[in-house]
Every structure is written in C-alpha cells, then in structure tokens.
C-alpha cells in the first residue's frame, strides 16, 4: 500500500484498502478558517445539533480577517469565537498566521494523520506525511464534528519523481507552477499525487510544502511526500508524532500506481502563472517588463521565513520601486519572530516595504489587497482568478519570492536571473 492507502486502512479499521473502495475513516484533525468555520458552525447548529465528539481535534484559525474592516466581519468573528468557546474547540485568533502554517507550527499536524479541512489547500499537509483532504461544510457538520469520521473513496495514485539540480534563481515554487503547465489544471482530478525522487528528498519540509500545495490545482484529492527524518524531527519538536505508529507502507517498487511521471528540472526557468487561471503558466521572460502596482510576499505559498530571507537577500542595498506597494505578510508568528531576530523586519521596512500581521494577506481581498481595474499584483499567493482581488479587470501574477522581490524593486515583472 502507498502511504495514504496505509493511513486509510488503519483509520477505517481494515487490513488493506484499494483504489475505488469507499471507506469511513476516523479523522484525527479538522481545520477551518474564520469564513468557512462560520458557515460550518451555522450548518452544524441548524441541521445537526449534536455534541462535538472530540473538540480537541478541531481547530479554527482566523486568517482571512486579521482585524475586521466592518461591523459585518466583526459579527462573523464574534459568532466564531462564541461557537468555539461553547464547544471547547481550539481557536487561533487573529494574527496567528494563515491557516495551514498556523496549524502546523502549533503542533496540530503530524505524519500518519487523517486531516480534513474546508480550505481547498488542506492537501498541503501531505508534506507532513498526513492524508489531508478538503471536504465541504456538510461533511464537516454531518460526520466529522459529531462522530470524528468522514467517508472517503480511496483514490488512484500518480507518482511524480523529480530529478536534477535547480538553476540559480529557479526555486521549488517555480517547479510547482511548472507542474501545473505540464499536467494541466484539473489534469489529475480525484487522484492522489505522490511526490518523490532525488530533488524532493533533498528539499526541506517547507519547500516540499509548495509542491503538495499545488496538487490542488491539478485537481488532485491529495498530494504527499513519504515522511522522512526531516519531517519526523519537526513533528517530534511539535509533539505531533501520535498518529505515526506501525504504518504498513510498502516500498515504492511494490506500490501500485495509475501512472508514473519523471521530470528532470535542471533547465527550468523561473515561472509565472498569469491571470486568469493558475494553469496559465509562462516562463518569466514572456511577461518580463509588465508594470505592477502591488507586490506581496504572503499567502499559502509565501510568507515563510524562507521567503522573508530571500527578500532580505534580493533587497540588499535596494529599495521598493516608488510606484509599487510591497506587502509582506508573515505566514505565522514563528516566521515573524524569526524575521525580527534576523534583522529582516527592520531591513525591509527601511527598504520601503509594508509589514502586515501574520494572516492569509490579500487572499480574496477579504481584509486587504483589493485592486482597481488596470492594476496588477505579483505575489506568492496561490490563486489568480479574476475578481478575487477587487476588479475583474485587475491582474494577479503568481511567482516565487525571488521573482516577487526582484519585481518589487524594478516596478515591473523581472527575471531574477538578470539581477542575481
């Protein structure tokens, strides 16, 4: 069995499972953010109304809102807080970071867990060796909250092996965006994507994170990397090893895959996903020179300490372009604290950047990041659909923290390789 087949077998009390089986599995963790949590709590109260079976397994993170801009949003947070307290679930209030970084840094995710969430990027936790899947409000309200269970159809698995050495200026984020161009948006609907090979093994946990994150845009049910010592070390330090016991995972050579893909990314150039979809990926030279008004290091694919360090490096002796606003949104309190300690906060502040609270930043422009018609932003966000950030005629370009930083300095989309 693959990792996720082994997790599903154990969680559903079976010896084995195979693709196509429908199983009812025990859920170790359910995560939701301020907006989805609000909707889920309403559905639960109105249609279910049972006690929550294991409130300690449920986490709500306020990340779309870090400070309510109007009475309406304040009422949402008020209702969320009251509901969280009433049921005794875990609550990470405003300023804790974006949902996925916040839960992992607070020890809520570990290898071997069944993790469900309403945020579509929940599969990112496959980087931790979890079976992590996005479900809708009705599954959460109907089976997860009252019974700590959820139904799953066991997916077929596609194995992707990555080989090669990345060129200077090309990063795991570029590999992730490029994979969407290779496999296609919705090119792997309902599948599990197993990522491996020498390049993935070399990557840090939080670089692998960028790969499992993107599996959602391929249409996958989940993405994952078999956990190794890097993951176990992080999980031990965060007391998150409880689900990793006697997993019956087969060696790669004995697993059954629907197909196997091998890519050598040694020659890969930096990539940019252009409006209107995440699948509209181009090499950076095709869009270099495009004027931008906003740049943002934040969102699900940015704002890690790794991204903030990249910005500090690229910005050495340089300033934000006078006609660009550079938003920096740490992904967690840990990332911000680390940036403070390393002098990155002061350096980028003096370079003209704006620091925002740890949150999901301009994601859907709920709390920040709306644009007017004709505006353009380049960011480390994970979505670029029209009208997600204000006007339907504003453009969002998705890229690496290297490309975002270099573009914020130049005032236009810039090939980092020309300034390295």
């Amino acid at each position, binding site marked *: 069995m693959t990792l996720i087949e082994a997790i599903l077998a154990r969680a559903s009390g079976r010896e084995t499972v195979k693709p196509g089986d429908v199983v*009812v599995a025990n859920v170790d963790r359910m995560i939701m953010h301020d907006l989805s949590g609000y*909707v889920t709590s309403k*559905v639960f109260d109105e249609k279910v109304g049972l006690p929550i079976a294991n409130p300690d397994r449920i986490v709500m993170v306020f990340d779309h809102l870090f400070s309510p801009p109007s009475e309406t949003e304040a009422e949402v947070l008020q209702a969320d807080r009251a509901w969280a307290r009433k049921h005794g679930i875990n609550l990470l209030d405003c300023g804790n970071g974006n949902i996925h970084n916040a839960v992992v840094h607070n020890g809520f995710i570990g290898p071997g867990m069944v993790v469900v969430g309403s945020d*579509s990027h929940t599969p990112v936790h496959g980087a931790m060796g979890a079976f992590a899947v996005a479900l809708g409000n009705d599954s959460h309200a109907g089976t997860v909250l*009252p019974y700590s269970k959820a*139904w799953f159809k066991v997916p077929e698995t596609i194995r992707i092996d990555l080989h090669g050495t990345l060129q200077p200026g090309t990063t795991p984020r570029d590999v992730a965006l490029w994979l969407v161009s290779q496999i296609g948006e*919705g090119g792997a609907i309902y599948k599990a994507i197993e990522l491996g090979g020498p390049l993935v093994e070399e990557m840090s946990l939080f670089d692998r994170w960028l790969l499992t994150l993107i599996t959602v845009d391929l249409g996958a049910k989940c993405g994952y990397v078999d956990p190794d010592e890097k993951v176990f070390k992080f999980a031990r330090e965060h007391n998150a090893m409880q689900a990793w016991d006697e997993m019956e995972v087969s060696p790669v050579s004995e697993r059954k895959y629907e197909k196997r893909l091998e890519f050598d990314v040694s020659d890969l150039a930096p990539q940019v996903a252009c409006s209107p979809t995440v699948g509209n990926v181009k090499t950076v030279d095709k869009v270099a020179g495009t004027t931008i008004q906003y740049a943002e290091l934040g969102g699900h694919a940015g704002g890690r300490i790794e991204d903030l360090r990249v910005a500090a490096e690229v910005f050495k002796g340089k300033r934000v372009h006078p006609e660009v606003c550079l938003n920096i949104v740490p992904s967690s309190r840990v990332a911000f604290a680390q940036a403070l300690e390393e002098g990155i906060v002061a350096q980028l502040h003096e370079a003209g950047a704006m620091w925002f609270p740890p949150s999901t930043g301009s994601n859907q422009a709920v709390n920040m990041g709306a644009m007017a018609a004709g505006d353009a932003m380049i960011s480390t966000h994970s979505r670029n*659909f029209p009208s997600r950030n204000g006007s339907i005629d504003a453009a969002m370009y998705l890229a690496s923290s290297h490309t975002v930083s270099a573009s914020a300095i130049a005032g236009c989309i810039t090939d980092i390789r020309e300034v390295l």
Partner: protein
Amino acid sequence: MSKYVFEGKSWKVGDFIPTDQIIKSRRVYQSIDKAAKYVFEDINPRFGQEVQKGDILVAGKHFGQSSGRAVAVKALIATGVSCIVAESFSRTFYRNAFEIGLPILEVSGVHDAVEEGDRISVDVLGGVFCNERTGEKLEGKPIDPFLIEMIEAGGVIAMAPKLVGRTT
C-alpha cells in the same frame, strides 16, 4: 427510472470556473436566497436575474475549482437549477453536490454540443444526455453507487448516523 431525469432550458459557462466566480465569499454572509441572485455575477450577470426553476447548467472543464465552499452548490440549488452537466467537475464541487443533493453528471463533449438556450435533457442515473434541438445524444460518466445512495438518502447529513456505523 424517472428519478433524476430532467429536461429544461440550458445556460452555459466555460472551462475552469472557480467557486469564487460561482458565488463570491462576501455573499456568504447573506441568506442563500439573496446570495442566489449573485451567482455568476462577474461572468454572466443575466444568469442570477433570469434563471428559471428547472433550467439546466452546462459547464466546461474542472467546474467549481478553487475554494471548496459548499455554499457554491447551495447557491446554485437556490437559483432553481435542476442539475448540472459538465465536461468535468473539481472533486470538492463533485463531492459537495452529492452531499447536499444537487444532481450532476460528467459528459465528455457536452460543452460543444450545446448552444445556450437549447432545450436539453439529462438522465443523471442512466448517464444519458440529449440535446432536444439537435437530437445529439452523449453518454455520461457512471456515478458511484455510494453517491447515488447518498443523494437518495437526502445528502450526507441525513445519511450520517447510518454512514458512520458502516464497515464495508
């Protein structure tokens, strides 16, 4: 098998429509009936105003991608749409549809086979699509028996007490 057989006027949307464009997240604060008027507000503002009960939506590839918000399905149900046929659905949308009770069918080639406004018929369980204007018939992707059981039970919440005790 007359259940889940629909005939109606068609509306069309393209490929890769994210849930954000089905219904914006800020509309989620409103009642679902109010939100229904804003379905597809950016891509086809006529839809929310003119859609009639029993109309059928035809979509392209990976319909309902991006955010997995179930409210996208609920808002579509509130517009009166009886079912959706698409080239393919995002998995969260697909799951939500059966969990909530919106019949949907994946039919390869359906997007090119329909001009908006055509009368079309869909037999969801039988997996048959027909354009009544052109007479063209297409076969749909079979639906997992488990999902049929769920939609017949009235959705995942109604089915939950029985579902969680299930071992096979």
